[in-house]
């Protein structure tokens, strides 16, 4: 599998480390009533067949955390943005 790092260009998957679902968002609260949100954030993960946004780390390259959109069945990569930009976009949507 090849991933096009926004900084480094196209690199093979061996240079990357996968973390998982990028559609989870760390709760902004420490209120005790938010425990359910925290459980969801820490433990609940979707495992879809098809399109999936996931965190990958360009650990063997520029060390940027990225979010790739990938088809989990065909491994086709539709896009890749930095986690930094993803976080900004996520913040804007919510």
């Amino acid at each position, binding site marked *: 599998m090849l991933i096009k790092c926004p*900084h*480094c260009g196209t*690199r*093979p998957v061996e240079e990357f480390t996968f973390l998982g679902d990028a559609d989870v968002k760390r709760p902004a609260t420490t209120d005790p009533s938010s425990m359910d949100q925290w459980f969801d954030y820490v433990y609940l993960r979707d495992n879809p067949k098809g399109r999936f946004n996931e965190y990958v780390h360009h650990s063997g*390259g*520029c060390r*940027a955390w990225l979010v790739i959109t990938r088809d989990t069945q065909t491994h086709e990569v539709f896009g890749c943005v930095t986690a930094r930009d993803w976080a900004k976009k996520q913040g804007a949507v919510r």
Partner: protein
Amino acid sequence: MLSTAHRLSPLSDAAIQGRFGAEKGQPGVTLSVRHPVSIVTVMVRKGKAKAFSATLKEACGFNAPAPCQSLSGKRAAIHWCGADQYYVVAAGMAEGTLYRELKESLAGLASCVDQSHGRVIIQIAGPKVRNVLAKGTPVDLHPLVFGPGQCAVTQMAHVGVHLAHVGTDGFELSVFRGFSESFWEWLTEQSEEFGYQIG
């Protein structure tokens, strides 16, 4: 009094001058260690990219390079090495001087960290240099794709490498010091079939 002459390269025992590997005509590659050298990691502070680049131009004679690019001035060269991160490299400077100068001139604009001892720079050049490097890096180094002034952060033989194309047919490979001996051994073995010179 301390001088950089007291610095001991981790490759001082391994990089012995001479001709090695296959004996067919000119050596396929020539290898050498750039030592002693000053290396400073410069990381741009938040929101200061423009001011940083301008100040750098004043201090060193070059702007901040674009991703995967290197620039060189009279006293130093600068290599992109990650988002908002650069290596500034210079030879012939006293211990800590480059670091102190950069820290002073870039105060408030960038965080500077001396890495002069933490990384080892290996120079490799010659007609077979791309054949040797292709045994390690997945980066396409074809001259049309990766010309002089390009650089990349990649992995070779399981070791993180900052790879920069300097001059017309030369490359600099910068690795963590602790891996340098192991990496050197691998690199010279990959060069054997073409014959190599350590100079």
